[in-house]
Structures are given as structure tokens and as C-alpha cells.
């Protein structure tokens, strides 16, 4: 049992380390423009931020898999992005209302 807990702890620590390594930035705000390869977001700080999309970018609408076509100007959005050069590249784009799952821990 001790070994199991130790292994699990190592895996959890590794996950934390891996996501921290990516230095992801979280962009929260309202979508003001969408192009084929970018999403511009008006953030709470009032600075418009343009995040570029990639083939690997994942989209989630209300917790379910979606595509960029489902995103509209005016939507609230949460984008997890990574800085590559001088550009912010989106790893994940989430939008839509999400119902809380009862088993959420």
C-alpha cells in the first residue's frame, strides 16, 4: 500500500512539474474577433490579446469536444496558451456553460 501511495504521489508531482514546465498562460475574456488562425480576446484588464491556433489546439464547448467553428464573437472564453517566440499559441480553448459534476473532487 505504501508503495502504491508513493508511486501515486510521484505521478501527481510529475504532472505538476510537466504542466509547470510548459509555462502555460491562461487567457480569460470575451471573444472580439476570430480569424482562421487566431482568436482575439478582450481580457478583464481591458487589453486585447490575440492567441493563435494550431492543428493540435483542442476545443471544448460546455465540457464536450468541439471545434473552432462552434466559437462565436461575444463568447466568454478560457484559453490555455503557450508562448512560442513572440506569439501566444493555444493549447486548449474552452467556452460555453459547464454544469458541475456531482462527483467532482
Amino acid at each position: 500500500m505504501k508503495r502504491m501511495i508513493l508511486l501515486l504521489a510521484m505521478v501527481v508531482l510529475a504532472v505538476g512539474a510537466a504542466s509547470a514546465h510548459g509555462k502555460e498562460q491562461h487567457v480569460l475574456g470575451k471573444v472580439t474577433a476570430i480569424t482562421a488562425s487566431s482568436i482575439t480576446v478582450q481580457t478583464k484588464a481591458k487589453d486585447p490579446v490575440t492567441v493563435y491556433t494550431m492543428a493540435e489546439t483542442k476545443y471544448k464547448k460546455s465540457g464536450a469536444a468541439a471545434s473552432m467553428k462552434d466559437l462565436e464573437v461575444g463568447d466568454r472564453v478560457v484559453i490555455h496558451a503557450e508562448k512560442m517566440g513572440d506569439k501566444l499559441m493555444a493549447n486548449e480553448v474552452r467556452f460555453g456553460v459547464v454544469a458541475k459534476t456531482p462527483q467532482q473532487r
Partner: protein
Amino acid sequence: MRKRTLLLWITAASVAGAAAFGWMTIRRGFSARDNPSAIEAYVAETARKLSIPASERNAKNPFAPTPEVLSEARAHFADHCATCHGNDGNGKTDIGQNLYPKSPDLRRSETQNLTDGEIYYIIHNGIRLTGMPAWGRPGKDDDSWKLVLFIRHLPQMTPQEMKEMEPFNPKSAAERSEEEDEQRFLNEGKDQK
């Protein structure tokens, strides 16, 4: 005599070739980002096959794939395995893709064609010199047998099942708190659009 000289030359050339290859490999450096060479993959797969005793290979799963058992195994997989293998078993995770060798796609024939006993043995004993640890306590391990049933189910996973797994994925308290803040932000916009 001529044969002996020729053999000596061939041996010397082979040793020199191997030494040159070894030197170049070491000079180039080693990275876990690479894929194992065909020789490495063949040797590792053969060693793994040989390391599973026949009695274990042919062992039968004591559990049936009932909805209850699959649900339990799904939560267990999300909590313990998905960090490397992904909830759908495709192995496309930050850690899984940077291991050496990389996490395999468990839905593919390379895994699905293994016997139940082989899959159980791999979960219960791990695979040496890879990222796969041995899970559970030594001896009887019901949880690993249930995971075998879930791995068999992976090719038929539904989006609903994937969604049900997410709350069980390991996350730090800080990540959960941030996720809740972001969820609240999205939900607040429900009537504002």
C-alpha cells in the same frame, strides 16, 4: 590460411564499424524524445514476451465486463493510468509522449492482440527499463484484472465515458481551484452574451 585472414579482416571491420557507430551515437547524445530504433524495439518486445511465463500468459480473467466492473475500472484508469496513457488510452499526453519508449496507443492491435494474461502481467509487474511501473500489491490483484477489461473496452469508448473520467484525473489543489475559477467565469457569462 587465406580463409583465416579474411575472417580476421571481417571481424576487425565489424568491430571498427560497431565502435564508430557507438562513438557517433554517444557524441550525438541520448534523448528520450527519440523513438527506439527497430533493433531496440525488437529486442525489448522479444524480452518482454519471453519474460511472461506461459501459465501467466494463459491466465483467465476472473471478472466479467459488467457495467459495475467497467465503471470501477474506468475511474481507476483515470486516476492511476491516464497521466501517461490518456483517458482514451491513445498515449498522447505530455508525459506519455516524452517517455522512452513512448506510451503506446492501447487501442491498437499491438496491445489488443495480447492475451488477457499478458496485459494483466504487464500491469501487475510493470516493464523494466520503461516508464511502466508495477501496480498493486504482490500476489492476487483484482484491480489489475478489472483494468484488463477496461483496456479491452478502450476502442469502444464514448464521449460521455470520457467526460465521466475527467473528475478522477489527478490534479493539484491549485489546479482544481484555478479550474473552478475558470468554470465560474464561463458560467457567469450565461446571460450576458
